[in-house]
């Protein structure tokens, strides 16, 4: 089924010959189109040439310098982490790595292909007019997403970049957590998790303790992001759509005032009695400079109001597909995930046990179950089918208009 392994040809004979891969990407896979590009490199859609079942997404890491003669420069720590973690992980709600091919100074990670992602699904429900994602789908997505998180956290893996674009959904309705490019183990306390990479998680999904300068990362930062994703599945827009403050010339990390402000507008100002360690946060003093918004004079949380107006809002226009059936348990789950105090925030394990999933309709393992419509397939462009040449970086040619979203993330 597979081509025979060539004998390793590193340094045969006299003198160094150089490393050569035993398998070649283009011998193993037929690239059928280009999916997307990002800071990390490019992703292609492919099928197997040797009867491998299914379709594949091949992530090609961008070499340091594109265009010029590529040199070996040492693999970035984040790529090493992603390669190691993806080789180790195995769970139905985490994207499956098929193999890694190291060839011609490039890294190719071959994953199972997923037809959809949550960003694309959310986007589809805003077209041509806003119509809610069916409650059964929301419930199934949330359960599967939490199930994947629970697995990661039980294995001491923090994802650190959960957002709709990174949550894949197969055409069979299985949710798969993808892009472990920022993930890392949290059982290695050599340096504080802060010191390695200073800013993580796309700002709209960033937990308040990170915004307030906490250097202590816990799985709770992923759970805040899951809460934001839940809210977005309901309202079809990011719940806390702040603007990122850029780093100044001294490369000090600024206080993300605007993002914190967006959170405070809905959640109210955090208080010591609900979050005992609040006063120890490095940016604690900044909180006093935030304005409690005009429509939130009491300073308390507006989340409940936000939730009910969101799940009922569509009902007037599209009666049958209202999310009202998600009811009060939906609110309780949401508020448990968007809990200010990271120590009191729901864990993935606890969230899976939440009555939200045991009341009402049974949770389906296929989030599309019972749906009559089908989501549009991932757009695949044909203008760059040559996985071996490195065309110019950073040109986003396909996929959704993702550009408006903050892509900023800083690594090492």
């Amino acid at each position, binding site marked *: 089924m597979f081509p025979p392994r060539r*004998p*390793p040809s*590193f*340094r*045969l004979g*006299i*003198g*160094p010959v*150089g*490393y050569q*891969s*035993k398998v070649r990407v283009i011998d193993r896979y037929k690239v059928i189109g280009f999916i997307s590009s990002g800071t990390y490199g490019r992703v292609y859609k492919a099928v197997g040439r040797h009867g491998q079942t299914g379709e594949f997404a091949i992530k090609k890491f961008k070499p340091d310098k594109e265009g010029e003669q590529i*040199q*070996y*420069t*040492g*693999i970035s*720590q984040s790529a*090493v*982490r992603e*390669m*190691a*973690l*993806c*080789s*180790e*992980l*195995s769970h139905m709600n985490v994207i499956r790595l098929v193999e*890694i091919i*190291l060839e011609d*100074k490039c890294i190719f990670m071959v994953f199972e292909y997923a037809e959809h992602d949550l960003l694309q699904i959310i986007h589809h429900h805003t077209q041509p007019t806003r119509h809610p994602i069916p409650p059964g789908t929301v419930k199934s997505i949330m359960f599967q997403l939490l199930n994947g998180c629970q697995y990661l956290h*039980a*294995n*001491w*893996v923090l994802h650190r970049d959960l957002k709709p674009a990174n949550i894949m959904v197969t055409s069979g309705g299985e949710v798969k957590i993808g892009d472990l490019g920022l993930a*890392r*183990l949290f*059982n*290695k306390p*050599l*340096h504080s998790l802060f010191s*390695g990479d200073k800013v993580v998680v796309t700002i709209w999904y960033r937990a308040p303790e990170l915004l307030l300068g906490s250097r202590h990362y816990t799985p709770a930062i992923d759970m805040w992001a899951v809460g934001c994703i839940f809210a977005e599945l309901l309202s079809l827009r990011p719940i806390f759509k702040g603007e990122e403050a850029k780093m100044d010339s001294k490369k000090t990390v600024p206080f993300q005032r605007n993002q914190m402000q967006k959170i405070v507008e809905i959640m109210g100002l955090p208080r010591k009695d609900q979050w005992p360690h609040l006063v120890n946060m490095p940016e604690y003093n900044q909180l006093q400079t935030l304005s409690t918004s005009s429509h939130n004079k009491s300073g308390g949380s507006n989340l409940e109001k936000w939730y009910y107006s969101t799940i009922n809002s569509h009902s007037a226009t599209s009666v049958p597909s209202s999310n009202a059936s998600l009811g009060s348990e939906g609110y309780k789950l949401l508020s448990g995930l968007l809990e200010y105090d990271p120590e009191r925030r729901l864990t993935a394990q606890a969230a899976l046990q939440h009555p939200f999933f045991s009341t009402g309709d049974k949770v389906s393992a296929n989030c599309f179950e019972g749906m009559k419509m089908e989501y549009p397939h991932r757009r695949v462009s044909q203008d760059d089918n040559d996985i071996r040449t490195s065309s110019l970086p950073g040109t986003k040619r396909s996929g959704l208009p993702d550009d408006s979203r903050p892509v900023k993330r800083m690594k*090492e």
Partner: protein
Amino acid sequence: MAANYWESTQRRHWQFSKSQLDELRKKLEDEDPNLVQMYPLPPLRHLSIYFNLQISRLGKRLGVRQQAMATAQLYIRRFYSKVEIRRTNPYLVIATAVYLACKMEECPHHIRLVVSEGRTLWPDFFSSDTSKLGECEFFLISEMSSQMIVHHPYRSLTSLQGTFSLAQEESALAWSIINDHYMTDLPLLYAPHIIALMAILLALVLRPNQTGVQSASNSAGSIASAAHAALSSASQSKAGASEKQGGGARSKVQKLANWLAESNIDIEAIVDCTQEIISFYELHEQYNEKLTREQINRFVKARGLDK
């Protein structure tokens, strides 16, 4: 997975039986018998002692913690179970393994720093071209199938310290036995918790005599018999013949034996481990650094692998 040894790639892909390991190595030698004949090498354990020394020297210069060095040693052992050593430049492989292990263990160093320290340590055998190390990294990762997360016995040792009320010197001794086991095949043969238990047992058996491990190799026979006595008492009580015995100096050993008897742990494996490490300490006596270095340097130079 990362937290679970039983589902880890280490257990699924990098744990062998002795005969499997022998077979792998024989296959490598058979690929090019001329090469093997032309460049004789000291026993593998002596090569491992030499490598360990080089890793420590590099690690010291870079300020690398023990655990990252242990990871590097395991990477090297895995790598040379798949690649004939005479086809590589061991100095480059050592530096690359340290460079990669540091990234995995969250204490990264810049490639240029690793290369410049390598140049300082092995000026005649190490290129200043960083791309050589970058290339070797591809080779190393590829041979390990990107399976870079490793489980060390240190964690088991830390969590069992309390269970067996180890004194500080006892834990320290067990810790150094674990450090030493990376110079043997044990990490490719047994689970980390088995290694940790072996190290605790040996530390407890050795401690009452106040002997260091190195000097203890003279009396390896007596240590082995003390360890075996403890283990056989464990397997006997496992078989049903439970009895209370001992006290005083032997009470911790007895406690360990009882604990093992009540557990599902493979006592036979601990016996094997104990024998392996003791025979390593014995062989350590015959280690000839000069000969080892010369034999390695000879094939590296003759085959132009340092270029």
